């Protein structure tokens, strides 16, 4: 099954729209049922992170989610946040003390997770992930894929 492209404004409610669409299309494309929870969570994380960045840096731009059947089920989430500010997001583990020493949390800002936490979670969850600067403008591209049944 071919392409779906979803663009959402930077609103937490639309992260749900993105999860809903990604999960429905993945299922229909033939991704194993056992992977659907993972897709729901990973897409939610990628979009939540994009929404946070947009709220701060690009409130009027849309976030783009691309779902494509290319032999595997490929999901790409592209934000329009500044890639400069993005540097600290690129290494999922940075600022997080290797996910193993979480006392750093308690120095943090009222329980917000450190920057990069969402990406770290994606990294721990999804086997095939790439995180790159968009290249053709501002923003970052999170690309994830799952096998098709």
């Amino acid at each position: 099954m071919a392409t779906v492209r979803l663009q959402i404004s930077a609103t937490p409610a639309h992260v749900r729209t993105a999860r809903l669409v990604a999960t429905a299309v993945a299922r229909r494309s033939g991704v194993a049922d056992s992977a659907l929870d993972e897709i729901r969570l990973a897409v939610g994380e990628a979009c939540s992170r994009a929404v946070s960045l947009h709220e701060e840096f690009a409130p009027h731009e849309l976030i783009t989610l691309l779902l494509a059947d290319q032999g595997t089920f490929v999901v790409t989430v592209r934000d329009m946040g500044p890639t400069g500010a993005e540097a600290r997001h690129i290494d999922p583990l940075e600022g997080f003390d290797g996910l193993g020493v979480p006392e750093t949390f308690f120095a943090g800002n009222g329980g917000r997770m450190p920057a990069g936490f969402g990406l770290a979670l994606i990294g721990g969850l999804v086997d095939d992930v790439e995180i790159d600067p968009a290249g053709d403008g501002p923003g970052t591209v999170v690309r994830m894929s799952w096998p098709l049944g």
Partner: protein
Amino acid sequence: MDLSLSTRNEGDRTIVAVGGEIDVYTAPKLREQLIDLVSNGSYHIVVDLEGVEFLDSTGLGVLVGGLKRVRAHDGSLRLVCTQERILKIFRITGLTKVFPIHPSVDEAVAARD
């Protein structure tokens, strides 16, 4: 699905049963609930996650924030969870080392450090 919250006390323990989805959209509601409890002197909190269908990093952040607050009062924040897909998220993020996770509310309420 929206978040549902219900709160009750057993002795000096306060149990918050959470249902539905804890995500970037609903997490603020849980955050407020935890802040309210601590402001009102509940420092030993058990968060029952058995009714949770979805939990993301924003939800984890709210739980960590709650833990931070109760610790400032020498309190505790314990979780109840047996759902594998939720437990997995705590494991991946290393948060199983931060939160005591119990298989039932009774065990969480009975537990002492």
